[in-house]
C-alpha cells in the first residue's frame, strides 16, 4: 500500500511538473522557446535577460491581444549557459512549432547555426554569436541585429581613438576563455596591424573567473594604455575590483555590451566608479513601452522579476530589445505573407524586411531606446553602432552618442569569414540578394 501511495504521489508530482513547465501550444499562437539560464555561474545575466524577453511578449499579449491578434507563448528551457544542454533544449522544443531561437549564448549559437537551415528555423543571436552570420547571402537563417561582436569591437576602438588616438597604444584584451571571448580575436589581430596598436591578451578561464589576481599582476607589469573586457557573469565584478585594486584608471577599462550590467556592478558599488561599457539599448524604465510592461505584467504579478525596480536594468532592457526585434519581424512577415499565423519560414523573411525606424520606435513606445534598424537580405546585423555608458558608483549613465562601427573594414572581413565557414560544408544553402 505504501509503495502504491509513493508511486501515486510521484506520478502526481510528475504530472504537476509537466503541466506547469510545458505550456499548451495552440495552433493559433506563436511558440517561442527561450533558451534561458536562471541557474549556474552565469545566472546573474541570464535571469534579467530572460525576464525582459518574456515580459515584453506578455505585455503584448495583455495589452494588444498578442501580435496581429495572435498570442505569443514563451517557453523557457534551462541551459545553464551550457552548449550541450542548449542543444538538448533545441531538440526538445523544435518539434512544437518553434518560430525562432534566441540562444543567449555564443557557444549554443555556434551549435545551432548549422541546424537552422536544415530545420528551417531562424537563429536570432542579438549582439552575440557568430559574427559572420551578418552576411545574409551566406547565412539566410542566421541574424544578429543590431550589431555583431566584430562591429562592436571597432566601435570601441573608435571611442579609444577619439580619446587620444590608437596608433602606438598598448591595448589589453581581457576575455572569458570560451567561444564568446575568443570570437573577436581574429579581427583584433588584423586591426592591431592595420591601425598600428599592440594587443596583449589576458585569457580568463572559467575556473579563474573569481580568482584573477595573476591576470591583474600581468596588467600591472605590462601597463597597457587601455583594457577591453570581454567578460560575462562573475568575471566582470571580479575584474573591476582587481582593476581598482591595482589602481588601473577605470575610465580606460571598457567592457563590451555583456560586461556592463547592473547585476555585476551593484556588487562592486562605489569601487567601480568610472568603469566604462558599451551598450546598444536604453537604460531605465521611463520609456512608454516599459511603463506598459510594468502596468500590464509586472504590477499584475505576471513577471518573474523579484522587484519592479529591476525593470529597466541594462540586461533586462536587452531582453526586451530582443523581443522587440522578433515582434517587429513577426509583424513584417504577417504583412508580407498576408497570413495572421505565420511559420518559422515566413518569419525568416520577416527578419529581412522589418523596418524599425525612428517613427516606428516612437510608435511602439521606445523613442530614443536604440538606433533605427533597417533589415535586409544582405545585412543581417543592421550595421548598428554602440554608445558608451559609465558606472557612477550606483547606476549606469550614458556618456556618448552612438558610435558607428568601422563598416569598411569589418564588412569585407565578415564576408571572408562567412565564405571560409561554408567552404567545407558541401550542400550549404546560400541565397542571392538584390
Amino acid at each position, binding site marked *: 500500500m505504501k509503495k502504491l501511495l509513493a508511486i501515486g504521489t510521484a506520478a502526481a508530482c510528475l504530472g504537476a511538473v509537466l503541466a506547469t513547465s510545458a505550456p499548451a501550444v495552440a495552433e493559433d499562437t506563436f511558440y517561442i522557446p527561450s533558451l534561458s539560464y536562471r541557474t549556474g555561474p552565469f*545566472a546573474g545575466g541570464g535571469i534579467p535577460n530572460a525576464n525582459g524577453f518574456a515580459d515584453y511578449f506578455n505585455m503584448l499579449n495583455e495589452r494588444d491581444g498578442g501580435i496581429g491578434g495572435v498570442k505569443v507563448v514563451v517557453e523557457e528551457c534551462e541551459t545553464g549557459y551550457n552548449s550541450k544542454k542548449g542543444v538538448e533544449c533545441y531538440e526538445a522544443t523544435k518539434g512544437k512549432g518553434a518560430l525562432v531561437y534566441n540562444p543567449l549564448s555564443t557557444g549554443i549559437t555556434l551549435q545551432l547555426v548549422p541546424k537552422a537551415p536544415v530545420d528551417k528555423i531562424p537563429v536570432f543571436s542579438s549582439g552575440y554569436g557568430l559574427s559572420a552570420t551578418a552576411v545574409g547571402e551566406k547565412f539566410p537563417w542566421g541574424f544578429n541585429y543590431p550589431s555583431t561582436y566584430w562591429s562592436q569591437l571597432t566601435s570601441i576602438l573608435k571611442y579609444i581613438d577619439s580619446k587620444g588616438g590608437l596608433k602606438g597604444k598598448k591595448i589589453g584584451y581581457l576575455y572569458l576563455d570560451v567561444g564568446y571571448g575568443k570570437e573577436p580575436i581574429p579581427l583584433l589581430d588584423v586591426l592591431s596591424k592595420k591601425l598600428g596598436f599592440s594587443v596583449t591578451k589576458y585569457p580568463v578561464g572559467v575556473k579563474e573567473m*573569481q580568482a584573477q589576481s595573476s591576470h591583474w599582476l*600581468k596588467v600591472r607589469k605590462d601597463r597597457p594604455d587601455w583594457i577591453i573586457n570581454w567578460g560575462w*557573469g562573475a568575471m566582470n565584478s571580479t575584474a573591476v575590483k582587481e582593476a581598482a585594486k591595482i589602481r588601473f584608471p577605470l575610465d580606460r577599462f571598457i567592457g563590451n555590451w555583456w560586461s556592463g550590467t547592473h547585476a555585476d556592478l551593484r556588487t562592486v558599488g562605489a569601487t567601480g566608479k568610472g568603469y566604462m561599457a558599451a551598450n546598444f539599448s536604453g537604460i531605465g524604465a521611463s520609456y512608454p513601452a516599459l511603463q506598459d510592461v510594468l502596468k500590464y505584467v509586472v504590477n499584475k504579478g505576471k513577471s518573474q522579476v523579484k522587484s519592479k525596480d529591476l525593470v529597466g536594468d541594462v540586461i533586462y532592457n536587452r531582453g526586451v530589445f530582443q523581443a522587440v526585434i522578433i515582434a517587429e519581424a513577426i509583424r513584417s512577415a504577417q504583412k508580407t505573407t498576408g497570413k495572421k499565423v505565420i511559420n518559422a519560414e515566413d518569419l525568416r523573411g520577416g527578419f529581412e524586411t522589418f523596418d524599425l525606424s525612428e517613427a516606428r520606435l516612437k510608435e511602439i513606445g521606445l523613442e530614443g531606446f536604440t538606433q533605427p534598424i533597417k533589415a535586409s537580405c544582405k545585412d543581417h546585423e543592421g550595421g548598428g553602432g554602440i554608445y558608451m555608458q559609465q558606472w557612477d558608483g550606483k547606476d549606469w549613465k550614458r556618456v556618448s552618442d552612438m558610435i558607428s562601427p568601422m563598416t569598411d573594414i569589418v564588412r569585407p572581413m565578415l564576408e571572408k569569414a562567412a565564405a571560409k565557414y561554408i567552404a567545407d560544408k558541401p550542400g550549404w544553402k546560400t541565397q542571392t540578394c538584390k
Partner: protein
Amino acid sequence: MDILHSIFAAPFIDMYSAPDFLLQVLWEGFVSGTLYALLALGFVLIFKASGVFNFAQGIMVVFAALTLVGLHSLGMPAYVALALTIGVMGLLALGVERFIMRKLVNQPDIILFMATIGLTYFLIGLGEFVFGGEPQKMIASELGLPSGSIDFTVGRGVVILEYADIAAAVVAALLVFSLGFFFSKTRIGRALRAVADDHQAALSVGISLNQIWAIVWFASGIVALATGIMWGAKSDVSFALQIIALKALPVLVLGGFTSIPGAIVGGLIIGFGEKIFEIYWGGLMGGGVESWFAYVIALIFLLFRPQGLFGEKIIDRI
C-alpha cells in the same frame, strides 16, 4: 639562444630589476595560497573522517555565503546573521550525518562519493529556490572586514597590500591552524584519526561515528563559510563561487588528502608557484598557464609520491 635567455635569464633579471613587483607577486601568491589551503582543509577534514572526497564542498561555500547574505538582507545585524549561518551549517552537518552518512556506514567509498554528488545537486536546488540565482554583494564591511590598503615604497615602485587581503590571509591562517590543532591535539582529533583508519575498529573501542561525522561536517561547513566570506568579498556571492573549489584539487594531490599540514603547505606551494610561473614564465606559452600549472605540479607529485607530501603511505597486505 633567445629561448634559453627567456627561460633562464630574463625572468630573474625582471625579478632583480623590479623588486617591488616581485614582492607584490609573492604577496598575491601568499594570499591565494592561504585561501587555497582553507579550501583544501574543508576537503581534508571530511576525507579524514570518512575516506570520501566531498564533491559538495564547493556548493557548501556558496550555500553558506548565500545564507549569510540572505539573512542579513532580511534586516538582521551582520553578526546575528553570521551566528545564525553557523547554526544553519550545524543543522546541515546534522542532516548529512543523520540522513546520508549513517545510512552508508561501511559502504564502498564510491557510494559515499556518489552521495556527496547527490548532496551537491540538492544544495544547488535548495539554494536557488531560497535565494535565487542573482549575484549578491558580500557584507564584508558590515562584518568588520577592512577596506583600503597600505602602500610600501620598494625601490622605484610600490607594493600594495589590501587590508581585505591581509584580513583574508590572517583569518584563513587562524582557521587552518586552530582546526589543525583541534584535530591533532584533542580527544576528538584522535578519535577522528581512529575513524579514518577503520570505521569498525573505531566503533569497537567506543568511538561514536555519528558524533565524529557531525563534528567534521560542521567544521567543514565553518571552513566553507569562511571561504565564502573571503572569496565573496573579492568578487561577489553567486553560484560561480562553486567553481572555486576546483582550485583545491591540485592542493590536495600535492599535500595529501589526509593531512592538515599538507593542505597548508600544498596551498602555499600552489599559490606561490602559479603566480610566479604565470608572471615570469607564462608569456613564453601564450599566458593563461595558471589554469593548468597547478595540475602539472600535482601530476609530477603523483608520479613520485602518490600519497602527497604529507599523506599517509598505506601498505595493504595481500
